[in-house]
């Protein structure tokens, strides 16, 4: 077990290195960072001098080597735009993104699994069909549009919820949370729903199809024949067996929510890493872009590791195999 984890972590280093290399090789094509760092009255000489100071004219391998060497020491450089250390910036924005991602993942699971089970058990019911149709809408509308729609309805017309921002946050050491204040919670609702809608639909349909499959299995027939109560059969035996693909999908989706909550963060002006990344792209803030991509690669690897470990927990057959 321990060697398994150690091997995975080593793989993660390789993944991060590869992502960093690809990202760096593309940075020369995103535009000129110096143009965004100085005003229109700066002379050409001063601009050239700035380029040299930042090492932007060095060959790509040298720049990349420098980046890796610094990153190994935990120094991700200084943001061109903010003129502050990148690690500080990311640490500031991380709680916002993680909170939003986790809340929306929990929302998607909490709504998706019961809905999936219900639509599997009562396949032809009216409510079932309603769920399925509405879920199609959730999948086909782009996140951007859903976000704007929600703002329009709940923020502008009804004025029930704030249309942007994170509300008041409480600092707990290095972490900032919006879950402990009223404005923080109300600001979390719309972005979380926007982000959760696609996920929820996916989970619901996955659970439904897996359940339908499992309910046809022999052991379910035998359990019924034996006289076990329906509730026990459905939730203890059937549902548990559908969990492996659901965990896989949820894990991958969680990674992509954290990485690509960019659109939702932009629409709701949510001060997370995604918004930071988008601004970094338009400002050609290379240190931030590089650090963000490497960090996201790391997240993906960790999440996949956790997912693989969860398999052992959920599926007893795997436990027997490895022992």
């Amino acid at each position, binding site marked *: 077990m321990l060697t398994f984890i150690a091997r995975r972590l080593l793989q993660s280093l390789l993944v991060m290195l590869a992502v960093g290399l690809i990202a760096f090789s593309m940075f020369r094509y995103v535009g000129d960072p110096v143009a965004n760092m100085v005003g229109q009255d700066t002379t050409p000489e001063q601009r050239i001098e700035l380029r040299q100071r930042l090492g932007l004219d060095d060959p790509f391998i040298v720049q990349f080597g420098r980046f890796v060497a610094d990153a190994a020491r935990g120094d991700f450089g200084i943001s061109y735009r903010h003129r502050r250390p990148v690690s500080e910036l990311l640490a500031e924005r991380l709680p916002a993104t993680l909170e939003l991602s986790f809340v929306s993942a929990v929302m998607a699971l909490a709504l998706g699994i019961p809905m999936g089970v219900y639509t599997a058990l009562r396949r032809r019911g009216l409510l079932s069909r309603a769920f399925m149709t509405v879920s199609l809408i959730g999948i086909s509308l782009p996140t951007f549009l859903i976000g704007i729609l929600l703002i329009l309805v709940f923020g502008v017309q009804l004025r029930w919820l704030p249309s942007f921002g994170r509300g008041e946050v409480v600092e707990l050491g290095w972490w900032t949370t919006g879950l402990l204040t009223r404005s923080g919670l109300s600001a979390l609702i719309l972005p979380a729903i926007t982000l959760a809608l696609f996920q929820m639909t996916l989970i619901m349909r996955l659970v439904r199809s897996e359940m339908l499959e499992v309910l046809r299995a022999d052991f379910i027939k035998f359990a019924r024949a034996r006289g076990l109560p329906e509730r026990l059969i459905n939730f203890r035996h059937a549902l548990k067996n559908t969990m492996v693909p659901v965990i896989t999908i949820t894990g991958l989706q969680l990674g992509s929510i954290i990485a690509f909550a960019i659109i939702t963060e932009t*629409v709701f*002006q949510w001060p997370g890493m995604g918004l*930071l990344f*988008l601004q970094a792209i338009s400002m050609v803030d290379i240190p931030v872009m590089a650090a963000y991509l490497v960090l996201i690669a790391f997240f993906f690897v960790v999440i996949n590791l956790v997912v693989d470990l969860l398999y052992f927990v959920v599926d007893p057959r795997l436990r027997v195999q490895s022992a």
Partner: protein
Amino acid sequence: MRFSNMVKRPALAAALALALGAAGAAAQAKTFRWAYQGDATSLDPMALNETFTLGFQGNIYEPLVGYDENLNLVPMLAESWENPEPTKWVFKLRKGVKFHDGSDFNADDVIFSWKRSLTPGSDMKGYGAKASEVRKIDDYTVEVITPTPNPILPREWSLLYMMDKEWSEKHNTTEATNVKGDQGNYANLHTNGTGPYMVVERQPDVRTVLKRNPHYWGKIPANADEVIFQPITQEATRVAALISGEMDLVMPVPVQDWQRLEDAKGVRPLTDAEARAIFIGMDQHRDELLYSDVKGKNPFKDPRVREAVVLAVDTNAINQKIMRGAAKPLGSLVATSVNGYDDSFGAPYKPDPERARKLLAEAGYPNGFTVTMDCPNDRYVNDEKVCQAVAAMLGRVGIKIDLLAQTKSKYFGKILLQAGNDTSMYMLGWTPSSIDAHNVLLNLTACRDAKTAAGQFNLGGYCNPKVDELTKQIGSETDQAKRSAMIKEAFMIVRNEFGYLPLHQQPMSWGVKEGIQVKQRADDVLDLRYVVLP
């Protein structure tokens, strides 16, 4: 379980206190909430020479001489100034001015600020370099020596903000925030200015809270006790925040939302012409255009072709159809609110497509030619749409345009001097930082000279020695009447030679809650001194 109980109580108490505090304060304090599409890059007044950042800082820091709501020069930290010799300016400083931390403003601070603007991390070196020496005559008088005669120094220093020497030394920020090797300059996140508002909270890119300076030296109409600024990048969200009442003022508002703001209750759009001239430039320098099907010669070197380009475009139609009438069609690179403008050279050209076709045939292009036009798509108001309209109008007279529109980082990364001016035709917008026409001549029409940085934004390489000579004379002419006459002469030459295709002054576009009075300054800066809440 236990962890959440542990933090719940003090956190809830904090939240409760916050809510009560806010409720109590709201009863008496007036709060002004506003949003822009980005944030001020830094609180350090010498970090970046960018209109929004400097305009934002102008509410916290102040220069010697500033602008009022109509961009007229008014005394700020200098009560009076005179120009006894061509290279000497004497400023009499205002007495009794205090920085936010209580220390006095005097000549030492002026000298310190000037020196700080010349440190490596500063982007205001160009301004600092306008003086070769700054001498203290007494605590409230400074003498500024300029390397060459400079008739408009006070105007040029309207963006050079005065910092407190003692505060900067105490917090180790005697040098401007450096983008390399500076782990955290104090002035980047903290301020100590003389302005009407002081910073009480700063979260970059999230929220900045300002509080009224109770010891401000001036009498201003502003009555907001607290100002909360939040950047909102997404334009739809920004407009929604205004209509829902969460924001009092947002800028900029997309052109298509003006009608929506007119229709919605409680908000109104504010659109006025900005001091930014938008124009199309042509490569007149190379012997063969980089991106054209004409080989062996450069059509834009022929004034007849340039005249055809100018006459083909109907700036009024562009204004009506694309800018909804809010732009101001212009015939020069100088906007009407800039010092030195005159209708004789600034009035829009009259379109004449027939004559344009004739001229092209005369110049040897009876079937026109093809050329690629570079355009940004997220820098100026409706930039891509305007470029498309220009392309269509040019197409009608035979000049086929291949439009290349891209995001501003890539666009400027291609057309600017550092990239070798890799373009044949481009769009550019220009607001002279000194709000004076000389800046336009120096940057846009002067023959390119890498050593003196002349014509740095003259991306097409327009060059006329007579205009250059006039530019030099204008730079040192202290008699205002003679100076204005020379400016007129220079721009008439540019106009008659059709050096550029000027389009219009783009409109500023703000959205404001009804009942709030603000002044929309022509350089698109929100001066909080003029914000009056009901």
